[in-house]
């Protein structure tokens, strides 16, 4: 995976249907300064690691039901 660039995000948002994000939001994703979110690059790296984990046939989490609580 190549390092993420802001220009990629700009193209992504222009070429696919997206909300009208401003430069400052896309800047924050590439070079976070607000201390709230992790950089998108870091997140993508972590997600790439998770992709390597075999979850078998486990489906996504849904609502909790009492009869399944002991599973």
């Amino acid at each position, binding site marked *: 995976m190549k390092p993420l660039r802001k220009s990629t*995000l700009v193209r*992504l*948002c222009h070429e696919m249907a*997206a*909300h*009208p*994000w*401003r430069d*400052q*939001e*896309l800047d*924050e*994703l590439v070079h*976070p300064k*607000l*201390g*709230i*979110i*992790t950089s*998108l690059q870091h*997140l993508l790296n*972590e*997600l790439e*690691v*998770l*992709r390597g*984990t075999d*979850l078998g046939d*486990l*489906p*996504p*989490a849904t*609502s*909790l*039901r*009492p009869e*399944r*609580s*002991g*599973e």
Partner: protein
Amino acid sequence: MTERPLAFRTAGELTALMRAGTLAPAELLDCYLDRIRRHDATARAYITVTEEIARDAARHARARLDKDGDAPALTGLPYAVKDVIDASGVLTTGGSRVLSDNRARENARVVDLMTAGGAVLLGKTNLHEFAFGATGENPLTGTATNPYDPTRLAGGSSSGSAAAVGYGLAAAALGTDTGGSVRVPASLCGLVGLKPTLGRISSRGVIPFAWSLDHLGTLTRSVGDAALLLQALAGPDPDDPGSADAAVDDYPAALDQPIDGLRVGVPERFYFERADGEILAASEAVLRALEARGARLLTVAMPSMDHARTVSLTVQMPEALSYHSRYLGERGELYGADLRAGLALGQCLLAEHYLRAKRFMAFYRRQTNAVLREVDVLVTPATPIIAPKIGTAHVTIDGVREAVGNALTRYTSFFNMTGHPAITLPVGLHSEGLPIAVQIVGRAFDEAGILRAAGAVERDERFRVPPPDLVSSVDGAACRA
């Protein structure tokens, strides 16, 4: 506890006084309204005070107490709700300019249930914009402050709910918890924070942050009060698709159950690492106290937490974006910078990322269920740090630098993904004068189990935390009942 000033007594004590006829609902309401006028400029707890609604409800409570010897358990009790929870005819702003004109047409289910229980709605409380963030900082509505030191954070995102109860401006409050947003502010402010099992309390009429992770919860002055409120709020709601159809236990009765033989799981790593030394020492003392009362301590291996924050964030932001899409077009400029960036993050993740994260949630849930077959409850510190100064962006613990919001939710957010019930309660004061808290986690739908363990801790005099040093000397006549 009974010597505490009126505004700092527990909900159980206050309702008992009203039931006995020694305190009128209107007197108690006047006390809180008086304190709101005196302290809220510092506390920044409220966005809207619903004085008229409260006065009507207090009159109704008085009539019920006079007429009915069996008035509901919460009759006359003034409480507050986070400003994402609808109350008919009142603004629900989410702490945002986006919804500055959003007047609710109906009550949220939880407000209906509190009303049916006889409680008196005092107002809507401050929060991190749309519940996005654990610091509670909000440039629009002001930042709720910590009752033990107003230069420090109350924590978030249910910051105003914690400040309202912590400053003695309400007897109890409701909040929402997506990664710790009830438990973290309760812990920082010396209160009890309860996040029941996912779906245990209806979310109908509540602005969501992330449907898969959102839990309604309570902020109270005691474990008994948490049980009292849960009894009023728990139960299925056929009109909420996320609501669970689970049997409701007798929660107040659980508090007095002995803990002989209780199997207490102590995670072998992560939860007792990279934390303030005094917090770790207090947590150890709680474990020893439980052991002395007959509990068995067992070391347990929890699922790996290495990527837990990534999983949580990957679920949160696309879900938040999905909800806020309806406002982004016409009102997008009105969002705060941090939330807009978070929503943009949600835009840039792939569907595969989101679904993989949801599958990891199922994986975490399955693994945690397996741990909780070996033990009855888990005990951890509630937060690795005490309340930070307002404006703190990062903290460094054991040489590791971490965003303050990440640090505050490090021990809580995992249990939003698994959905297990968790309660935090104060167990001491740090040498800097700020509260320290522990977290107790239980099996799905076994809130009675965590209340039982928390009750045993709370009864131990060594863990009593005094109210903040801002009480009776500044109270007006209204609070001298």
